């Protein structure tokens, strides 16, 4: 099925549309929760990636790809899990 047909089928289905909204809202809430608990998270999980589901840390790892593999092994579906890098070091991006 083409991408446009997949999109149409999602948007025409109230259930699937609602599922997408829920996923995006869940990520937003997880990110807000992570930002507001940053000091606590740094104390516990400095320089690690944390996986947050329903505003709760469900797993952490220093290696993001290993974390994703572990999350998929444990939970299967991880689309509502937000992964955040926790560090108190300054971050500099250059592209």
């Amino acid at each position, binding site marked *: 099925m083409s991408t446009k047909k997949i999109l149409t089928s999602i948007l025409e289905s109230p259930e699937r549309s609602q599922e997408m*909204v829920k996923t*995006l809202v869940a990520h937003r809430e997880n990110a807000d929760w992570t930002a507001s608990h940053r000091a606590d998270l740094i104390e516990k999980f400095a320089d690690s990636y944390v996986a947050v589901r329903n505003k709760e840390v469900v797993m952490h790892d220093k290696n993001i790809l290993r974390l994703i593999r572990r999350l998929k092994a444990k939970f299967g579906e991880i689309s509502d899990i937000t992964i955040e890098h926790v560090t108190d070091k300054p971050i500099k991006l250059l592209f």
Partner: protein
Amino acid sequence: MKLKGYFRRDGHCYFDALLVSDKLRKPEFLRLLLDTGTTTTTILDGDCERMGLDCTKLPRNKRDTMAVGAMVTSYLLRDGVFVFLDEHDGLQPEILGRIDVINPDEDSPKPDFSLMGMDLVSRFDKLVIDRRNRTVYLER
């Protein structure tokens, strides 16, 4: 209609979206860094690997992509759709005819975000970055 973004600790602005593509099993969550220096919206190596996007099944871009300090090989994802939430939590799809994809390799940095390029930004009438009120949004 407004798409609301947010600031992260690194001081940059981000927008969340779900990517819909016939190359993916299901819609995948992506965090897009607002990057007005990037021409084409680009899925970076970390997201590529996380989503299980198989670059060997994508056409290679005819021209390499100029990144800082190097030319990198990129691949082409056709007809991808980024689905955003608007200010009323309604779904707002944006269809892109082409999305660049950077294939991961062992030494690539694999950040936890991808890049929102000018091809997406320029579809909107207004980009607002209000540092004082900690708000960022795209509006049309």
